[in-house]
């Protein structure tokens, strides 16, 4: 019983600590991309080309897909448009 309480306390504590550090922007980013791993199109690109990198055929969509299939859990710290523009 006591170990359950300790475990529950630990879980709540970890959730609080991690959640407390996340801004609403963090959560929005996270919710929008609920997988950590790129897959799909990137795999098709690999299959279409020789493994040694010879004779590559790169379509514009390959590049775009690869850009999007990234490590969404961490996103870059970037200046906001409001720091640069006013409409």
């Amino acid at each position, binding site marked *: 019983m006591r170990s359950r309480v300790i475990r529950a306390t630990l879980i709540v504590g970890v959730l609080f600590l991690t959640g407390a550090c996340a801004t609403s922007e963090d959560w929005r980013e996270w919710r929008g991309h609920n997988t950590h791993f790129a897959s799909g199109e990137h795999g098709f690109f690999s299959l279409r080309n020789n493994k040694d990198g010879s004779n590559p055929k790169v379509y514009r969509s390959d590049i775009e897909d*690869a850009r999007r299939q990234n*490590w969404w859990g961490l*996103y*870059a710290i*970037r*200046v906001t448009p409001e720091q*640069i523009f*006013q409409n």
Partner: protein
Amino acid sequence: MRDNPLARWSVSGLVALTLLLATTGAGLARPEEAITPVDQYNTSKAKSLASTYRGQLVQFYEQIYHCLPWLGVMKNGIGFRQPRGVEADDRYLSVWVNIDQMDDGSFGTLPAERRVSAMFSRYGVDLLRRMVGLSGIAGDANVHGFGVVLSWLKPGTGRGPSAQPVTETLALFIDKATFGEFLAKRLPAAEFVNRARLSVFDGREALGRLPLEIWEDTFNTTFKLKGYEPPRDQKC
């Protein structure tokens, strides 16, 4: 003009980079998202420009998309924007791009002002030149000038599973007359920089004006991505 420190970069890394990169990809625009929607402007002048030149903006986006695949236009990244802090309704045709590049180590050894100078020389001047070439825009009295916003991964960040990437950003706006003189080589680069509104950011931290140098760099017009050909009907 200075020696181009970027010439040493391994451009072959661009293929790997564009395929593997991407910690800075969030916020990149799909084609239909790249152009600032008319309803997001708050003045009639801006709305009018955005409507009148919609075709040219699409054309510009497609040129970047197909001809410069190492650049990614940010969401709403193309539009007739007003730089922050400008009181008059001066409109600059602007583009905000994220630059995909793989650092072979030499880029990270450059001080911030050299990185900014290198990026502007390589990508900024070329993008400004392309905007000037868009039909009708440069001659429109309601267009005050042109602007480029360049973002790239700050060297040394984003490595390892727990390192959050940080982007460095240069925003530069220049009036039409000054840029015209610069292009015609009637204005020294130093004077061009003096007249430009420019700001540099490290992540979200404003660094203000950094000393900017400009040199010749033909990368955008000469580099060929191995295995990639733009569509035949696309004029690059």
